[in-house]
């Protein structure tokens, strides 16, 4: 069970290509990647697995990435990075207030 030693990262993005690219990049960097395309999938994976970090897109088809961040933060003190195509100061503040550690556009 060598895989158990790898840190686990939840990646939630509705853009399948970004998800694919992040999976490859993070896997090569030594992470185990749990991909999710919706808020529901992200929260399901977060509830089932012990996560070491999470990368969450803000705009999701079934909800708000901020809400996912807030829920995950209530469960864990892991690093959470919000990833979004929206370069907006208010969104950044909301994300950080919800418990994100960083905001990447």
């Amino acid at each position, binding site marked *: 069970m060598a895989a158990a030693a790898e840190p686990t990262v939840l990646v939630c993005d509705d853009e399948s*290509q*970004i998800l694919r690219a992040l999976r*490859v990049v993070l896997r*090569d960097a030594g992470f185990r990647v749990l991909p999710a395309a919706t808020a529901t999938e992200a929260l399901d994976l977060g509830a089932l697995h012990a996560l070491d970090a999470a990368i969450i897109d803000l705009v999701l088809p079934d909800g708000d990435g901020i809400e996912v961040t807030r829920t995950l933060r209530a469960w864990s003190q892991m690093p959470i990075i919000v990833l979004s195509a929206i*370069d907006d100061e208010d969104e950044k503040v909301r994300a950080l207030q919800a418990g994100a550690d960083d905001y990447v556009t």
Partner: protein
Amino acid sequence: MRRPPPLPLGPTAPPVALGVGVAVTGIALTTLLVYPLKHVAPVVALGVLYLLVVLLVSSLWGAWLGAGTALASALAFNYFHIPPTGRLTIAESANWAALGVFFVVAIVASSLAQAARSRASEVAERRTEADLAAEMARLLLRGGDLRAALATAAQRLSAALDLPSAAIEPVDGDGVENVGAEVGRRRIAIALHDGERPIGTLVVPAGLPATTLARLRERVAPALEALLAAALEREALLGDRVETAALRRSDVLKTALLRSVSHDLRSPLTAILTAAEPLAGERIEDADRRELGAIVGEEARRLARLVDNLLDLSRLETHGAPPRPEWCSLEEVVRAAAEGVGVPVDTFQLRMAPDLPPLRADAAQLERAFANLLDNAARHGAGHPVLIRASAVRSRILVRIVDRGPGIAPTEQERIFEPFHRAPGDRAASRGSGLGLAIARGFVEVNGGRVWVESLPGQGASFVVELPIEAAADGLVVAAAPDRSAEGGRSGRGEA
């Protein structure tokens, strides 16, 4: 609405000559009538009979002719009936007094009749003017084409005032020339103002009676000014509202454009940047390199499509995409569009009627329209093939692009053609720009066609493109194909 006056007292008197004739005849008949009556009543008392003639004449022809009739009556009464008869002298002083009283009563009665006539005439005029004002208010304030309403109002005005003609011209710019002056020899222009501002002109023929002209200037023109000012203000407000609505729409569009573009441009860029960085590294496995390379290529193409779509939409919004019609084959257009979508070739199944006539349209624009419709169908087709059927029905060609995806809710079926609109819960749409269907509709419509969607949720969607078949140019064989497809004789939006 216009009621007849209760008395035969029209606003204009009958001819004076007729009045003189009536007066002479009436006096003669009365003089004759007094002869037999002298045997049963005192002759002086019978002078009252002449009053009937005086009243009749003065009420119809005015006080002056009435006074003349009274004088003639007194003379005739004196000459024929007051002793000594046959002479204009009076023997007894009592008869002088009787004749004097008669004359005074006749003059007073004549004046009263004239006053009654004037009042009746004025009442009739005012009633006509009130009816006219109400009619013009209805015409000018109901909205619609103001110039047409003014033309109708001018007709009503000329009919109500018995004018040969009348015209009402609004002022479009800085003012009117010759306002208030005689325009040539045949027309008179009465300036209409809203305060100091000239707002129009009432043009009537020259040579109208002075009373009619005064009536137009003093009573009709002020009412018309108030109505025209209100109508012009209403028209200006309506124009402002339309302009405001257009600006608001443009503003909403720009906001949506900025939000959508910032998101849609950044998403493929993020994917490309994320994938490109490890590609430059040395410690990457071949399989990962291929996958990341594929991601870069796909996202770059997606970015290019988005930029193309933005340019297309921009041209359509600014009417900068005039079609360049040429004779073209629908099948070639659709095949080229299908090949450009970037999905496996067997995704699209073409079922074109074999004898479709050529189209006269901008082939490049139609290809862009079909490429967007096919791209949309492929993304929403749930992995099933997309069927493309085309057939000629009378003077048009119908193309149906049928997918077997989740379908479109009725409330969304028109909105999906709006730029940047994405149906709620539509995950496949996140791969699109939200512009494709707006562009498809734009290009189809500038080429004289229509596009709409028919769908039931859960049962796929059928996008229908209707294009007109024009008369063929010389040398081109065009056979209006009998409809042999499954669509039969059905047509239009009602198709299932």
